[in-house]
């Protein structure tokens, strides 16, 4: 794969085959001429929980298997719900967690062969002058995609690590550093280079006092729809007293967005309506909505408040 710039790993194919079928191409997404099926790697779909070590996921574990794993449901409910909120039951049966994390964005200009935008190696972002109701309100620059994954914010909220295999060997990093924005490289959404693989996902055992919540706002019903905004929240608390907070949103920025300002505002405090409003406001302070998506600022604040309440219930 490394030697051939037109080779691509394929897992469940639910995202990759869509690209190929629609014939979307550009510098960041050439016309792939060789697909390498990685599902045949033994053990790559493991879901293993160990009280001392935490949860280990092989990248080929399907979203459906993760959603229904008893250990994940019991100890990592935010991940079970996030995996179950993605796409539709049939896609979750073939779609893998590795593919979900590495799926390409849904920007309707990017996925349309008529528009040669920055992300395809062109020199314009059509969302700026066009229809951007579902684009980014935070951290956009050159490109204003939103990260499409439901699983990614849950992994980040759980402080998961990614292990990747590159030309230099194996490397492990927190998911906070795995996703990269357009400022770093507009052609990619994460650190992987041509030929690299995500090989393992690992996260620690959550504190027994951790409460979790995953909420997804979407355009219709509960199936088959990407998030307008979603939020994954883990709150470690004793009654009303918050010890630690981990809050990550998707649908708002080119990478899953950790609401650091909200986490800081909540840590060590006693929960109250005023505190939650203040924390949510702080998280969205730097939002710079485009012409049609200011409504996402309100949704994001409301969901942060709702999810902290839900996690502490």
């Amino acid at each position, binding site marked *: 794969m490394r030697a051939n710039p037109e080779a691509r790993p394929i897992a469940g194919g639910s995202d990759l085959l869509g690209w190929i079928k629609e014939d979307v191409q550009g510098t960041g997404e050439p016309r792939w001429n060789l697909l390498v099926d990685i599902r045949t790697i033994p053990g790559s779909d493991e879901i293993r929980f160990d009280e001392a070590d935490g949860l280990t996921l092989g990248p080929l574990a399907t979203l459906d298997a993760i959603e229904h794993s008893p250990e994940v449901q019991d100890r990592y409910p935010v991940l079970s719900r996030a995996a179950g909120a993605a796409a*539709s039951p049939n896609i979750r049966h073939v779609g893998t967690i590795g593919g979900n994390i590495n799926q390409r964005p*849904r920007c*309707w*200009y990017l996925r*349309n062969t*008529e*528009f040669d935008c920055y992300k395809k190696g062109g020199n314009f972002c*059509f969302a700026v*002058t*066009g*229809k951007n*109701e579902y684009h980014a309100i935070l951290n956009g620059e050159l490109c204003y995609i939103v990260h499409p994954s439901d699983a990614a914010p849950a992994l980040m909220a759980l402080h998961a690590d990614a292990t990747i295999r590159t030309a230099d060997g194996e490397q492990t990093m927190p998911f906070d550093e795995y996703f990269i924005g357009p400022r770093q490289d507009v052609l990619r959404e994460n650190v992987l280079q041509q030929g690299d693989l995500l090989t393992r996902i690992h996260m620690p055992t959550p504190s027994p006092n951790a409460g979790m919540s995953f909420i997804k*706002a*979407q*355009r*219709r*019903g*509960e*199936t*088959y*729809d990407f998030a*307008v*905004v979603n939020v994954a929240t883990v709150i470690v608390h004793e009654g009303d007293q918050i010890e630690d907070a981990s809050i990550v949103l998707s649908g708002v920025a080119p990478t899953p967005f950790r609401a650091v300002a909200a986490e800081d505002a909540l840590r060590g405090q006693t929960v109250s309506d005023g505190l939650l409003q203040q924390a949510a406001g702080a998280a969205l302070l730097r939002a710079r909505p485009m012409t*049609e*998506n200011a*409504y996402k600022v*309100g*949704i994001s604040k*409301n*969901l942060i408040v*709702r999810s902290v309440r839900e996690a502490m219930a």
Partner: protein
Amino acid sequence: MTIEDAVDVVVVVVDDVARPAEGTIVGSARAADFEGVSQKTFGAGFYEVEVDPATGFVRVIEAVQVHDVGRAINPMGVINQIHGGVMHGINKALTEELIYDPPTGVVVNPNLDEYKLHMIDGMPERVQVDFVEPYDVVGPYGAKGVGEPALLPASPAIHAAIYDAVGVYVNRQPMTQAAVLRAIAEL
């Protein structure tokens, strides 16, 4: 008035029309006598919605729709048509929209991924559809039609139901989250 009472009133009014005795052979009535006479179809829809003020998301939870169809030649077909109209009308009110990129005129959602139709879970939990059969002198065998009429009641009723829920008329269709939240903000 509950939805049930309202429906009773409509059914009584529409049923109160003379119809031929059972067994009468009426034949095709599309005769020269009726050149220039148009058929009038009637129907009524009653919708109940839930609006989440935090996200602008609208869920239709109950739909009742009754149509005057003339004679129902295939009653099951009529019922199915009205069910389809309910779903189609909900989509029209809430999600369906062909979106053009303004500078270029290119459609940015030319697929069922971005052109949003509800899936089956968008159908309200409670759907009740019915029809009345006043004999129609113009249509064949006393029938009228229920193709397009079945689509019409949902969207105005949903506009009104949203008004009833949050006190604001959303002035566009589809009523996406952005549209609903904007309307609430301007209240």
